[in-house]
């Protein structure tokens, strides 16, 4: 077996491993959907699993694990955008709690 073949087989093994992890995590989301818990708890649990899935895909499928500089660039920009989008939640809660038809 040549060096290229060894590199290829180890790369494929890693990718298949990550793929199986993603399938398991996706399965966990489906299991959570059938749990007898509140919508808020369900949302939190599913979001945590989705973030782990996204992290695995970013690091291994999109190869961010190999480039530290690009990894931080992507994380900082994306997180800043995601935080910026959260400004509306207080208004959302005001709508549900602060209007007569909500009660």
């Amino acid at each position, binding site marked *: 077996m040549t060096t*290229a073949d060894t590199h*290829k087989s180890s*790369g*494929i093994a890693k*990718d*298949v491993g990550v*793929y199986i992890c*993603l*399938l398991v995590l*996706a399965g966990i*989301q*489906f299991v*959570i*959907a*059938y749990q*007898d818990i509140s*919508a808020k708890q*369900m*949302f939190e649990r*599913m*979001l945590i*699993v*989705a973030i782990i*899935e*996204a992290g695995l*895909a*970013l690091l291994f*499928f*999109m190869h961010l694990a190999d*480039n530290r*500089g*690009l990894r931080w*660039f*992507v994380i900082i*920009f*994306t997180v800043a*955008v*995601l935080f910026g*989008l*959260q400004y*509306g*939640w207080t*208004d*959302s*809660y005001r*709508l*549900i709690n602060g209007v007569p*038809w*909500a009660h």
Partner: protein
Amino acid sequence: MSQADLSIQGQVSRTQATDLMTAPAFSVPAKKMAMWLFIIADTATFAGCLVAYGFIRNASPSWPRPFHSITNVAIMTLVLLTSSLTMLFAVQHAQLGDKAKAFRWVMITAVFGILFAVLHIREWMGMISEGATLFHNPWGTPLFSSLFFSITGLHLLHVTGGVIALIAVGTRYQGGRYNADDLEITGLYWHFVDLVWMFVVPLVYLLNLSH
């Protein structure tokens, strides 16, 4: 120091300055960096849609839960995740110079993408036959249908664009006009489409499952 030495020194410093100006950011080629910037921008688009969905769902007192079965969405998830794996195989074969296998895996990825789109349209048709449209929802607030079709439609549009890109780039790679880097960049986009689905499934489908 002679005039010639000064001239050489000037040329060297100019070359160093040019290198600094043209060196790719984070050692990433310009084309790949452009794709990453597009992905970051598109993340903002999808995040905006999903946050708006969350905002409206949170502010609506009677949000419908119309989904009875997860079979179709589970198959769609399996298909899309598998397509990401086949895309990785394509890039690996391309990087090793195995053009025929790389092309074959790209086309398999495209077939998975088409299968996903067909399943998605089948899901839509089922909902439309029950009376749900972009502006009408038989189970309650019309906002549900508007958001469902908008978010999943935006994702379906990305998948369709991705399939076209895969076929176009794969064919040109086979023809020798594109190289392994171009396949890898297309792969980045395809993985991103998969990544977005990981958030669409729990938020749009699973949280609206009827118990």
